[in-house]
């Protein structure tokens, strides 16, 4: 069983991006979450915030048009949308801790059914890479996680309890994997949508903890 079944990376990002509501302030983490900004979500106006103090960035800059002193949290040279503002790092995390981020989208190694998640340190490592993840996880109004449903050797990433050091506890709102869309419910995960080509049994087998299935389960649009 490999992580390439079901939705592609962009399709997972698309699914999460379709949750964004008009006027939201959103922080996109490095990796798959970055792809959310590619999704067409109609006329909805989203303000993208980056940890380094950019409020209101747009797409990646065209080659030759980069401002080398303008990067998002992933170090990509981005553009600015009209109405953008720049603040320093302490003020930028003031935006985060102050509760102004409507949604943060992050990658993770594991998510638990109680809404814990782990994304900064592997077992056996002395240190890790925290960056802004703990601040965002603790303070954003909604924490959306995108991850491959299973590990390279087929083990579950949606688990009863994280065995990796957690980034924050009880904060995850929604989880998009290549297998579908999930909500941590405390006593288990609820499957809200299933990826085309997968069966509920397949998803259940690949998921740690209990899996409840939403009434009227729909297939995730793979657009």
């Amino acid at each position, binding site marked *: 069983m490999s992580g390439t079944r079901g939705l592609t990376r962009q399709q997972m990002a698309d699914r999460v991006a379709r949750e964004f509501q008009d006027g939201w302030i959103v922080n996109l983490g490095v990796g798959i979450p970055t792809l959310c900004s590619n999704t067409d979500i109609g006329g909805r106006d989203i303000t993208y915030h980056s940890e380094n103090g950019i409020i209101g960035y747009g797409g990646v800059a065209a080659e030759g048009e980069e*401002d080398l002193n303008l990067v998002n949290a992933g170090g990509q040279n981005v553009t600015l949308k009209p109405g953008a503002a720049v603040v320093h790092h302490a003020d930028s995390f003031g935006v985060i801790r102050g509760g102004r981020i409507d949604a943060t989208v992050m990658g993770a190694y594991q998510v638990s059914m109680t809404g814990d998640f782990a994304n900064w340190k592997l077992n056996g490592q002395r240190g*890790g*890479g925290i*960056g*802004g993840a*703990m*601040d965002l996880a603790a303070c954003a109004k909604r924490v959306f996680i995108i991850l491959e449903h299973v590990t390279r050797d087929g083990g579950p990433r949606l688990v009863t309890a994280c065995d990796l*050091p*957690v980034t924050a*506890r009880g904060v995850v709102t929604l989880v998009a994997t290549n297998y579908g869309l999930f909500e941590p419910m405390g006593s288990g995960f609820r499957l809200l949508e299933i990826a085309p080509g997968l069966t509920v049994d397949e998803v259940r087998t690949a998921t740690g903890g209990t899996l409840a299935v939403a009434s009227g389960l729909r297939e995730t649009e793979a657009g």
Partner: protein
Amino acid sequence: MAGRTKLLGSFAEAVAGIPDGSSIGFGGFAMPGTPFNLIKALLDQGARRLTLVANTTGGAQQPRMPDIGMLVEQGRVAKVICAFTAATRPTDVLPFTQYYESGDVEAELVPQGTLAERLRAAGAGIPAFYTPTAVGTELAEGRETRVIDGRAYLLEYALKLDYAFIRARFADAFGNLRFHRSQRNFGPVMATAARVTIAEIDEPVLRAGGIDPDDVHTPGIYVHRLVQVPPPPEGLWPSRRQEKRR
């Protein structure tokens, strides 16, 4: 204020006199705001037993630029305080990671927002504050927490610096600074946290008052030494002029 200038002629002069045992903060988030030229001068300067404070130790990009991980490799570092001892993606490898993982150097891993706020607190005379970040994680183990209005918070202390090394786009002779876009990042908070702030500047330094008072990002009272970055290849990392040529 008009009568003096903080402008020095060389990076070597700017880092002269930094003693062993100093704590030094470095601006920068990815490339923007990283004081590559001051780091290079510090690599030659020789001070030892340093405590380094930065978002990351750098060195992920190729070709490798002067970074503070090199000070670690030179055996001149007692401790690093940062938000990453390893890269976000396990597949990226920071040169620093092996030194830390093998126990060759101490590090204190701090969430990025807490790092910024601890520096801001040091600058603003706030000795300690509470934050929701890292509650319930390994970083909070054995640490003091406090419940306020029903939520748990972690106590964090101000992080003072002896020196801050930063990079800005514009400066005037009094030391007022302006940053360009995401070059700003840690620069302003590092400057307030430090006893002595040394800034490398993209553009020629203006006369005192050359920046409108409403447009100053970092007041000159926080800035002590300025050096203009010369054109490449002598000066490291492109100035605005080059960016447009790329």
